[in-house]
């Protein structure tokens, strides 16, 4: 169903990146984030840009979707840039405005910060746009499995995560419906002071909680009826398996990491 996967803005497409094992994408994203904080000079920046551009190109997701996430953190980016511009100490100011002084060092850190933040958002979008939340939890579960040896309940955590993710769109839809139903009875969710607003929420929250509990109850019952007893001995319908492309992607990722590290050592 379409509405099952609205969370995490998954963008359905038929691409190499979409078909990669989620573990590869998780590791790749992690490596990418690390590289963002490693690079120091223009060559490193170019390498990272090339890596990002390649992923975006391969993912077949329109570029517009990638940069959509930037809009949400616009304010944060502007504030960060301003702080860095004016509060980084240096030797000779290039610009003075009252007590505020701007140094070349500040300009440099501000630019770096902007690049890092926007690359961070766009880069992680590549993962969330090409992987469904369910694939992600599957990947996490399998990837973290070794931890279960030391007693971490990996399966339970992954199961809770996927159920929670599954319920978010349902609850959003339900909220929308109940809100409309109460508005049809003249309820008002917009005007009034904070206390009145909170009071007006009662007709929305009570049915919402009732329905959330009912759904949770039904789900637990349905899982038990299908003999769910936890992770032990449970097999998967679509077990995660690495393919040739996954191996190539891993190789590319680690070569990329090595290059970034080498460039950092030489300050390029």
């Amino acid at each position, binding site marked *: 169903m379409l509405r099952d996967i609205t969370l995490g803005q998954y963008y359905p497409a038929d691409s190499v990146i979409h078909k990669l094992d989620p573990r590869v994408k998780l590791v790749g994203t992690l490596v990418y984030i690390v590289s963002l904080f490693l690079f120091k000079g223009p060559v490193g920046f170019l390498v990272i840009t090339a890596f990002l551009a390649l992923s975006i190109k391969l993912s077949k997701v329109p570029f517009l979707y990638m940069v959509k996430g930037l809009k949400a953190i616009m304010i944060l980016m502007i504030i960060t840039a301003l702080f860095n511009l004016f509060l980084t100490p240096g030797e000779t100011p290039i610009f003075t405005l009252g007590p505020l002084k701007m140094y070349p060092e500040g300009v440099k850190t501000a630019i770096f910060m902007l690049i890092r933040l926007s690359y961070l958002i766009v880069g992680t979008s590549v993962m969330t746009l090409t992987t469904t939340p369910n694939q992600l939890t599957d990947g996490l579960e399998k990837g973290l499995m070794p931890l279960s040896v030391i007693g971490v309940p990996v399966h339970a955590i992954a199961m809770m995560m996927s159920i929670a993710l599954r319920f978010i769109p349902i609850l959003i839809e339900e909220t929308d419906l109940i809100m409309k139903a109460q508005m*049809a009875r003249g309820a008002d969710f917009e005007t009034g002071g904070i206390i009145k607003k909170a009071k007006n929420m009662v*007709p929305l929250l009570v049915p919402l909680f009732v329905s959330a509990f009912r759904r949770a109850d039904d789900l637990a019952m349905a899982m038990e009826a299908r003999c769910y007893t936890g992770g032990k001995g449970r097999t998967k319908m679509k077990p995660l398996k690495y393919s040739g492309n996954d191996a190539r992607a891993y190789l590319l990722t680690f070569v990329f990491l090595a290059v970034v590290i080498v460039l950092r050592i030489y300050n390029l």
Partner: protein
Amino acid sequence: MSIILDHVNYTYSSGTAYEIQALKDINIQIEDGQFIGIIGHTGSGKSTLIQHMNGLVKATSGAIYFNGQDIYDEDFDLRNLRTKVGLVFQYPEHQLFETTIFDDVSFGPKNQGLTKDEAGLRAFEALKMVGLDESLYYQSPFDLSGGQKRRVAIAGVLAMRPEMIILDEPTAGLDPKGRDEILDLISKMHDEKNITIVLVSHSMEDVAKYVQRIIVMNDGSVMFDDCPSEVFKHYKELEAAGLAAPQVTYLMHELKERGIDVDTEATTVEEAKRSILKALC
């Protein structure tokens, strides 16, 4: 009172990968006192359509007029419209929230700005109309059976004294007796209070039995908009759209083909009986 939908289009999740055009160029006029049935396959846009009629959903393009006034005008009072056009959602029992049935039904009238006494009076009247036992009025709505809850929810809309009531599949999930009771209640509201009724339903039998006019939705467009006997003449097209005519229609066509001169326009069992008796005697 009249509602006019003029070239209404509606798109869900506009501008994303999940864009769905739920309504395509809808033109409908609803007059005072009509009893209208809306039918259509699952996902054909029935629920979306009726949510436009009281301004809960804003059309992506097109206009809607209530008594000649554009409801999307800046100074149009949408909350007032919603009290005049009551909307009972699918599974309305899921919206109950108060501690007593009586309070829950008074919620609408209170929102209209009526005094406590007046709201109570309206609630009392509405509960009486839906035929709920008086001993239940001060109990929790959550302890009722499904059919009873649904009546309370319908009373909640009725208590606002709307001029028109739209019901989205009010009989879904009820047993035959509960279904008949709800439908009789709706038809009583139409006959006694002269309330305009729009009934969304999946059951051709129900629609044929009660309504004067049928709007058939297919993939977001209006496929037919006519009286039942006219609409059910197109039973082959209805089948192609994932619907069916009442079983009586099939029977009458079958009889006609076998050479018995019956009226194929009969849509209810009662009409069919008369026509068959006439043809045989």
